[in-house]
């Protein structure tokens, strides 16, 4: 049994690696599977076939793993698809590490295929597509090399370069063709698997909505650049950065450490109205991404109506009813990695009716203070307000005081007994939750109703919509103004409100998000409708400018851009056809011809006299006829060349070098002989003269 080609095995293992990557990108595989497979891949790439000797033992190990996975599956700890994917990847790892033979080969490719299929069930990410393409290309190369290797007799070198080059060209065309096929041919959306259900790369639910806000929690979230929310606003504000509050929920009860709500779950409906609508509603179409990780609906302040939610789960997309919770929070009842829904909000300056949707218990809580509130809080509030009783003016005064005299920090100083007193009188620095809590409570001590609101602040423009990042998470205060309802007052210094992440990371992520959004729009969600739109956009007559005279009769012909596009496409096709025909019509540069070129070069260097257009064959015949000493060296060489070129017996590996070396030696000897001869002739001549 001859040794298999290292390159082919490496290609095979890399293909399996990419197939695994197609699944691993979903982030749903258990860590131990990741570690095992990657370890096996590295070993396989270094040609360490660990399992070759212990294949029985490893098979037993696989069996054990299968049982374990089965147990996890039945206990509900693991998804069936994830379990199947994990098992497939472990089989692939075992096969990669076993003795390379035809069976192991086939099984590795087969498990690779299974893993790709599993990846399709787990994620429809852009990274998945890249992995799929890489798998296809590498596996094809490896398989083709395997076929060639099998055909080459023992001991002969495998013409790797000769195989890979045309094959790569073919694969390039295949990939390009697949892309063209994708764009041009009618397609339907199957929605068999939830393409958006995957959390994506490294997604960990980061916004962390819970039922409470605990002062003293870690503030690292401010540096998290993951996008949690994507929104399209109508009417579009058109600004680069939104200066807006996205509210998730509010809290009314503070116990000195934690904010909670008095009221729990209320009604469940398809759509929940929080406030009566006005005639200038701001419509939002919002997509919550897996990085969000909570079930609370978010909307711009002040939300009026929320609902029409769709939950994107691994098993498909379905509509989710929404449930009203305490504090004006609206929650999805279906748990899913990502959601889409619609929300209508009142514009910030609109008059929202008095304390809408508030039950009596909630109303009573707006002035409630914790049991052991530091008395200095009330003193400080009174001192700052100096008799100001008007709620909004008082709130603004307090907020200005806090912004002026207190510093912003994300660092935490352990878990103090009374975080509020610690913030106000000891550290005099804190993050948004501290500022908001301080403002809310100081207002309450002065008899002004207020509550804590949490959500996000800001929004970056992207592709006509807005992105909100996990780092944009924020807390602020709602002040109850009689006759106007709740008004937002933010005590946090303005520069510290938006995301605090590094600019570079944010830019990189924004780029990734942009690419991914493109990918989703033009690949994942690309449908027959989009193809139709594309075609229609091309042939639709141009919209007449509003001021243009309407005298020219509307033409039924497609607009010039359709003709231009058609011409460009025709030209491109023609050029491509010409290129291909020239490419195929080109005489192939053969091994023998290359050899001949080298012989010619050697002869020319040695200044062997040669007639014009004289072929090597003719030259050798002529030299042999003349009894030239070089003919001795040239004859076998010429014969081999002719055999290789016209006789169908290719040069063996290294044979060309050997023949050339012989020729060079002969040429050198000839040169030496010629160098001596003139001397010999010159001698007598010199004497004669």
């Amino acid at each position, binding site marked *: 049994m001859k040794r298999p080609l290292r390159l082919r095995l490496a290609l095979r293992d890399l293909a399996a690696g990419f197939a695994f990557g197609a699944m691993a990108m979903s982030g749903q595989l258990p860590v131990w599977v990741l570690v095992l497979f990657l370890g096996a891949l590295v070993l396989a790439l270094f040609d360490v076939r660990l399992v070759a000797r212990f294949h029985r033992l490893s098979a037993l190990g696989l069996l054990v793993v299968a049982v374990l996975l089965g147990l996890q599956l039945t206990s509900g700890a693991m998804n069936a698809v994830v379990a199947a994917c994990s098992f497939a990847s472990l089989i692939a790892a075992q096969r990669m590490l076993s003795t390379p033979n035809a069976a192991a080969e086939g099984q590795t490719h087969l498990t690779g295929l299974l893993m790709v299929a599993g990846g399709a069930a787990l994620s429809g990410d852009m990274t998945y597509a890249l992995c799929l393409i890489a798998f296809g290309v590498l596996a094809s190369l490896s398989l083709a090399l395997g076929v060639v290797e099998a055909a080459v007799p023992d001991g002969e070198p495998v013409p790797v370069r000769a195989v890979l080059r045309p094959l790569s060209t073919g694969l390039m065309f295949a990939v390009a063709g697949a892309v063209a096929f994708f764009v041009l041919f009618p397609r339907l959306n199957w929605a068999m698997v939830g393409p958006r259900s995957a959390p994506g790369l490294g997604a960990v639910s980061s916004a962390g909505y819970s039922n409470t806000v605990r002062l003293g929690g870690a503030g690292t979230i401010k540096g998290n650049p993951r996008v949690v929310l994507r929104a399209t606003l109508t009417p579009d504000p058109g600004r680069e950065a939104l200066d807006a509050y996205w509210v998730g929920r509010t809290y009314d009860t503070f116990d000195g450490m934690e904010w909670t709500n008095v009221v729990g779950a209320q009604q469940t409906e398809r759509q929940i109205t929080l406030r009566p609508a006005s005639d200038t509603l701001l419509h939002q179409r919002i997509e919550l991404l897996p990085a969000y990780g909570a079930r609370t609906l978010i909307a711009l302040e002040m939300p009026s109506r929320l609902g029409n939610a769709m939950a994107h789960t691994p098993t498909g997309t379905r509509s989710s009813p929404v449930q009203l919770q305490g504090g004006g929070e609206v929650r999805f009842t279906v748990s899913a990695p990502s959601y889409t829904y619609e929300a209508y909000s009142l514009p910030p300056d609109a008059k929202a009716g008095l304390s809408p949707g508030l039950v009596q218990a909630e109303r009573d809580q707006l002035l409630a203070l914790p049991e052991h509130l530091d008395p200095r809080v009330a003193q400080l509030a009174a001192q700052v307000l100096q008799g100001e009783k008007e709620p909004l003016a008082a709130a603004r005064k307090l907020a200005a005081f806090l912004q002026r005299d207190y510093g912003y920090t994300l660092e935490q100083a352990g878990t103090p007994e009374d975080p509020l007193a610690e913030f106000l009188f000891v550290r005099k620095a804190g993050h948004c939750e501290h500022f908001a809590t301080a403002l809310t409570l100081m207002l309450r001590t002065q008899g002004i109703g207020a509550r804590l609101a949490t959500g996000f602040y800001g929004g970056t423009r992207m592709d006509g919509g807005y992105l909100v990042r996990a780092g944009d998470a924020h807390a602020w205060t709602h002040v109850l103004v009689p006759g106007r309802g709740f008004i937002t007052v933010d005590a946090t210094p303005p520069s510290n409100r938006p995301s605090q992440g590094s600019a570079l990371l944010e830019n990189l992520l924004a780029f990734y998000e942009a690419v991914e959004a493109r990918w989703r729009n033009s690949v994942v969600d690309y449908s027959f409708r989009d193809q139709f739109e594309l075609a229609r956009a091309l042939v639709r007559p141009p919209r007449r400018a509003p001021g243009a005279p309407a005298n020219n009769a509307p033409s039924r012909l497609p607009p010039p851009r359709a003709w231009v596009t058609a011409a460009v496409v025709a030209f491109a096709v023609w050029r491509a056809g010409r290129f291909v025909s020239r490419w195929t019509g080109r005489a192939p540069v053969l091994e023998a*011809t290359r050899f001949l070129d080298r012989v010619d070069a050697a002869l020319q260097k040695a200044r062997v006299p040669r007639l014009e257009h004289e*072929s090597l*064959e003719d030259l050798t015949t002529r030299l042999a006829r003349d009894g030239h000493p070089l003919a001795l060296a040239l004859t076998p060489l010429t014969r081999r060349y002719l*055999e290789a070129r016209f*006789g*169908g017996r290719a040069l063996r590996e290294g044979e060309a070098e050997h023949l050339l070396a012989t020729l060079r030696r002969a040429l050198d000897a000839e040169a030496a002989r010629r160098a001596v001869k003139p001397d010999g002739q010159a001698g007598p001549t010199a004497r004669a003269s």
Partner: protein
Amino acid sequence: MERLAAQLGRAVQGKPEEVRRVVTCVVAGGHLLLEDMPGVGKTTLAEALARACALSFSRIQFTADLLPADILGAQVFHAQTATFSFRPGPLFRQLVLADELNRAPPRTQSALLEGMAQGQVSLDGQTHALPSPFTVVATQNPVDFSGTYPLPDSQLDRFLVRLSLGHPAPDVEARLLTTRGAASPLPSVEAVTGPEELASLRDFVQDVRLDAAVADYVVRLARATREHGDLERGASTRAVLALGSAARAQALWEGRDFVTPGDVRAMLVPCWAHRVLLRSAVQGVSARDEAAHLVEEIARKVAAPR
């Protein structure tokens, strides 16, 4: 082939190249046209060939009054049985020497033509197969044209190779005088092969590999003759095929089982010079030389595959 050439060399001295061409032509299974002055050994060469190959041989002297029946044979009436039976003519031999072919009228030439092309003759509605292998060696005198019927192009095209022997070198001529005198050299030629071996040799020639690149070269050469300004008519498809088999036989000479462009070039002039038609009105030797010159020029212009 080497043995064959050696035997022929005994009969025709001082002409190794020409002898080689003759053997090449016979091995390739083609007919040979010798065109030369009288008395340079054309007949001797043909007879020696027949002896060396142990082929049945006949010589037909073509004259102006020769009729087809004279070469093909005739139906003979048997008085006793009152039936006709076919009596084969001198054409029914494995090697036929058609001497002074251009002196016979076209009718007779055509009768020979059919035999050469089809390997059979038709007579009174009956076809008679000629023996195998069947080779015609024809000679003609390019100088003396009076009373001749120049061979039509179609007939010229049927000869694989046209050769001219030319006068032997002076020293060879001198040696002939001193050693041979008037005695014929033919008895010294020994049979070194037989018809069967010749047939298998011909099969072997057809198995010689002709690479696609070489085939392309031959076709390009043919196209060059067709497009050449000084040629009325270029090489026909039959000429292309003929060059292929001639080059194959030539490759065999070199001990190769594949054809190289060099083989093609070596057989190009003997194979094609008589098949192209010149625009100029020259005739005879000068026409022959000019055609050969033009074909050589074309061979220089068309790049050989590398």
